[in-house]
């Protein structure tokens, strides 16, 4: 049964990817990429990788689509050229694929419990993690404790990407836009105007995103706090179930991005300011690195949480809690910064 689900989902993935290759409208390609991510997230669930599926669903279908769409809004929405030199490219791809498939012949069968990957350190992680590190979720304990160095590295990579983005695009304000938005809107009159279904009237109000969508605004107001609350649950429940800093940061960021999309980017930027975000991004990395340094000062190794408390397991618990918090804050801040830099850019050449 597992195999049937697996094969059906894989076939869907193949169909989606062929459509992505063929389609010329970039908007459709981005939507298909979102579907591709969602399908692969479902596949990750069938392959028991719940944490990965969670991240892929939040990042691949949420943030990644939003970023691609906002970049698309700043450029052109259609591929203008047919593929160049498609036959040479096809030849390269087919040869590479054939070589790779020849290489898989030596791989152990899919799902084989005796393959070498399952006979190495994984055995030790699964057997010893409960009484060495503590969290029931082994992925969290490997991520935060056994392989804390890697995760620190990845957190810094995300941070660097954020810096690069601010350097490339910056937080330049759209001047004429700002002036219009700071005019206080008289709720009764403006909503009444907006609700008239006259095309010309609408043209005047189109610059205020969401002004015509009463339902969207109300549902947004209802659900954004719940999304933020859910992000906090994912953050602090990550030791016990699927979740953790990466997922929580992305979900929290998507709550803020939803707010910016429904109401306005400028409004969102007054609630969560770019300056504050930059501080948060730095604070996230700082918490992570700081925990490592504190461990060193207390006489342990870098990121060796055992020394943080009298009991090693309590120390591990505290250490994992803190660094997951650092990761969550960092990821949240960088994701929102990325969205702001794209959303705040004026279309056209400089």
């Amino acid at each position, binding site marked *: 049964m597992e*195999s049937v689900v*697996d*094969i059906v989902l*894989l076939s869907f*993935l*193949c169909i989606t*990817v062929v459509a*992505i*290759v063929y389609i010329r409208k*970039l908007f459709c390609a981005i939507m298909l990429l979102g579907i591709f991510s969602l399908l692969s997230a479902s596949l990750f669930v069938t*392959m*028991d*990788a719940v944490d*990965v599926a969670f991240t*892929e669903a939040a*990042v*691949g279908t949420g943030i*990644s689509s939003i*970023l*691609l769409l906002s*970049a698309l809004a*700043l450029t*052109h929405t259609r*591929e*203008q050229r047919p*593929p*160049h*030199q498609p036959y040479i*490219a096809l030849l390269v*791809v087919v040869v*590479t*694929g054939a070589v*790779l498939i020849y290489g*898989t012949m030596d791989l152990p*069968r899919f*799902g*084989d*419990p005796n393959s070498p*990957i*399952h006979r190495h350190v*994984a055995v030790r992680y*699964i057997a010893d993690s409960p009484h060495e590190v503590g969290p*029931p979720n082994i*992925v969290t304990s*490997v*991520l935060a404790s056994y392989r804390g160095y*890697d995760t620190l590295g*990845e957190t810094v*990579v995300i941070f660097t*990407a954020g810096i690069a*983005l601010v350097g*490339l*695009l910056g937080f330049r304000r759209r001047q004429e836009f700002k002036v219009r938005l700071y005019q206080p809107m008289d709720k009764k009159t403006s909503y009444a105007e907006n609700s008239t279904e006259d095309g010309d009237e609408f043209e005047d109000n189109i610059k205020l995103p969401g002004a015509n969508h009463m339902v969207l605004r109300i549902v947004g107001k209802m659900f954004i706090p719940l999304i933020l609350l859910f992000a906090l649950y994912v953050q602090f429940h990550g030791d*016990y*179930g699927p979740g*953790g800093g*990466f997922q929580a940061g992305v979900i929290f960021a998507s709550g803020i991005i939803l707010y910016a999309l429904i109401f306005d980017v400028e409004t969102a930027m007054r609630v969560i300011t770019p300056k504050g975000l930059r501080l948060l991004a730095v604070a996230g990395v700082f918490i992570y690195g700081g925990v490592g340094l504190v461990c060193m000062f207390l006489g342990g190794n870098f990121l060796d949480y055992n020394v943080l408390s009298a009991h090693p397991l309590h120390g591990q618990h505290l250490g994992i809690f803190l660094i997951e918090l650092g990761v969550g804050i960092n*990821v949240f801040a960088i994701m929102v910064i*990325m969205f702001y*830099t794209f959303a705040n850019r004026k279309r056209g050449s400089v």
Partner: protein
Amino acid sequence: MSWVGHYNYWVAIFLMMSGFYVVISRGNLIKKLIGLNVFSTSVFLLYISMGKIFGGTAPIINEHSQKFQLFSNPIPHVLILTAIVVGVATTAVGLALTVRINERYGTIEEDEIRAKDDSL
């Protein structure tokens, strides 16, 4: 189900090569980034496939999972979990570069950019 064998790996390689094809054959920079995203997601698929054990369950040890003796391998999960978030960060940098190129050249088609470079 022994005939499933390497099916997962082959599909992952097919997807990977489709992404690769988009990257090398298309001139549009955003389409290239979409292809790169397809490529990276299929690499994730390959890694997670290797971590799967038939009859195993998600590597979370609690009262519900006591009846399972087998857990899927957590190491690929950890690697890919972080790789996904790093992937979106790098995609964003690529998109930012694309936006900047568009502002400078007025196009995101590779050959037009090259033509403008040559004419300078």
